[in-house]
């Protein structure tokens, strides 16, 4: 009888950790695409969250109209987002200097455009892909995992792992990393930098296509909800630096823990405040976090 409360507490803590880590892995998934595009093409994509929402809505309607399961709708949304991202690359290719600031302003315009288009097309109702409310009971610890959580955890970790292997183990990954580190030297070494831009945007689009349906499964879709996802991506990118997959995953877990703790301790209304404060603190502590070597060398 004496050990009962403490066991209960431990179980609660483990449950909390599992929830936070599944949220954090999803955050890392959101951030990888943003960070790749920023690192390789030097483009701030503020519309990242809106694109995730867009693919979330796509998956939602595929699910509603044709009752397609997630496993089918994810490839479809991957291909459509690949297309959208390549269009975005064309749009951002020839904008005037200063490049980063102008991509920021253009994608800010894109945020407004997409938000209002989504408002027009999907209305301001909150939508979610209804999960089957099946709880998987893991007998050993007495933990509860929803099926959604398991899907999100495995898909996020698997995608993160694939991108990590792609960057570290393949020749293409080497070329991408070289472009990230120094564009001019990469060009001298025979890397086709234009193609690398296309590949980065394409990969980013595919990752958005994976994240969107998961988002629709995990949280409510609302046309104005995209900025939150973008802020998460920005926070993790500053924390880890561009293109650092392991750092992004670690940052995602920390952010997941902080946000879950905030929600638990002071209520869900303050969660947005936590991420905004973290972002500002990170920007103050690491003002160069978004600007890797290329920015310093040009100054």
């Amino acid at each position: 009888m004496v050990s009962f409360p403490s066991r209960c507490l431990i179980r609660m803590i483990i449950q909390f950790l599992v929830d936070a880590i599944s949220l954090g892995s999803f955050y890392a998934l959101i951030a990888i695409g943003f960070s790749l595009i920023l690192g390789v093409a030097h483009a701030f994509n503020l519309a990242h969250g809106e694109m995730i929402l867009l693919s979330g809505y796509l998956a939602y309607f595929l699910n509603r109209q044709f009752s397609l399961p997630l496993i089918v709708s994810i490839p479809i949304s991957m291909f459509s987002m690949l297309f959208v991202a390549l269009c975005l690359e064309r749009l951002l290719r020839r904008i005037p200097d200063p490049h980063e600031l102008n991509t920021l302003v253009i994608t800010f315009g894109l945020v407004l455009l997409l938000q209002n288009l989504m408002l027009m097309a999907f209305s301001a109702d909150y939508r979610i892909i209804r999960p089957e409310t099946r709880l998987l009971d893991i007998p050993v610890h007495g933990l509860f995992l929803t099926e959604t959580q398991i899907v999100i955890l495995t898909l996020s970790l698997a995608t993160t792992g694939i991108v990590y292997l792609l960057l570290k183990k393949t020749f293409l990954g080497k070329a991408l990393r070289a472009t990230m580190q120094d564009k001019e030297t990469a060009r001298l070494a025979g890397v086709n930098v234009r193609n690398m831009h296309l590949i980065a945007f394409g990969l980013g689009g595919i990752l958005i296509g994976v994240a969107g349906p998961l988002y629709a499964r995990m949280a409510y879709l609302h046309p104005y909800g995209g900025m939150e996802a973008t802020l998460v991506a920005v926070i993790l990118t500053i924390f880890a630096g561009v293109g650092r997959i392991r750092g992004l995953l670690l940052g995602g877990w920390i952010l997941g823990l902080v946000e879950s703790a905030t929600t638990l301790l002071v209520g869900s209304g303050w969660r947005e405040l936590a991420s905004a404060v973290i972002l500002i603190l990170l920007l103050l502590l690491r003002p160069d976090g978004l600007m890797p070597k290329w920015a310093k060398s040009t100054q």
Partner: protein
Amino acid sequence: MILLIVWPWLVEQEGIHCRVIGMAFFYGCLALAWNLFSLSGAISLGHAAFFGLGAYGSALFCHYASLSPYLTILLGGLLGALYGILWHVTFRKLRGAPFALATLASVEIPKVVIDNWEGFTFGSLGVVGIPELPSLSLGSVLLNFGKDPAALYYLLLMVLLFMTLVHRYAMTSRWGWAIRAVREDEIAAAALGINVNKTRFQVLCSSAFFTGICGGLYGHLIGLIEPGLVFSLHISAVPLVLSMFGGRLQWYGPILGAFTLYPVDQLLFRSLLPVGHSALYGLIVILTLIFFPQGMGAWLQKHLCPASN
């Protein structure tokens, strides 16, 4: 100019056109206030913070202290300026894109605090029943701003004229040249003996103050404010779009943007697309940056009077 003064007599007094042009003046003021800061070279994506603080400051002072709205609007402006000081202190080292991101995030702080502090700010329900601007009697003329659109029209026109003078002063005076020097090259400006930090501080604070005043005015014009409305991305975006479209480096640029885009949005797009008509602003800023990076003002100047270049 004369056309703008006699306009209410030309068209019907109660008409929607009068109201829309009046609101175009209002958004022109907002754009001028935003551009004041962008003259120093920084792009802010978070002016909604000043706007919302101004609106809430004014409405709550009015509610709790029962002061005259004219006074509380000024207090709202001061509250905006106070947040501007905070920006200046915390974001001193940031420039360019990181600065823009920080401003974007800093809107969330007052928004979430006001959203959750229900006892004092009424939380997400917002403040309703904000009193209208009280009437003023100028000699024999009674200006009833609440009821008479024409009176309101002239009030907003006066505010716009004042803001235009401030904006023009910030471009052509000695101070204006200091701002320009800071924008072009901070190190060179410092070498010329300009106090870069002080100039940025002055510009940011005046911009925040006037944006706060616009916010306070907005509360009294509309009569209702809520966190999601006054701290919205839309409020941060509209002055940016208007200034970029009109031309950031012309003294009349933001006004040009407000006079062309806002009526088009309200009269044309709103009737075509009741929901999501603000998509226009997003589209415009993308097209502007690709085709007219200097804005319409610069383009017109180049093509209409090539001699001046």
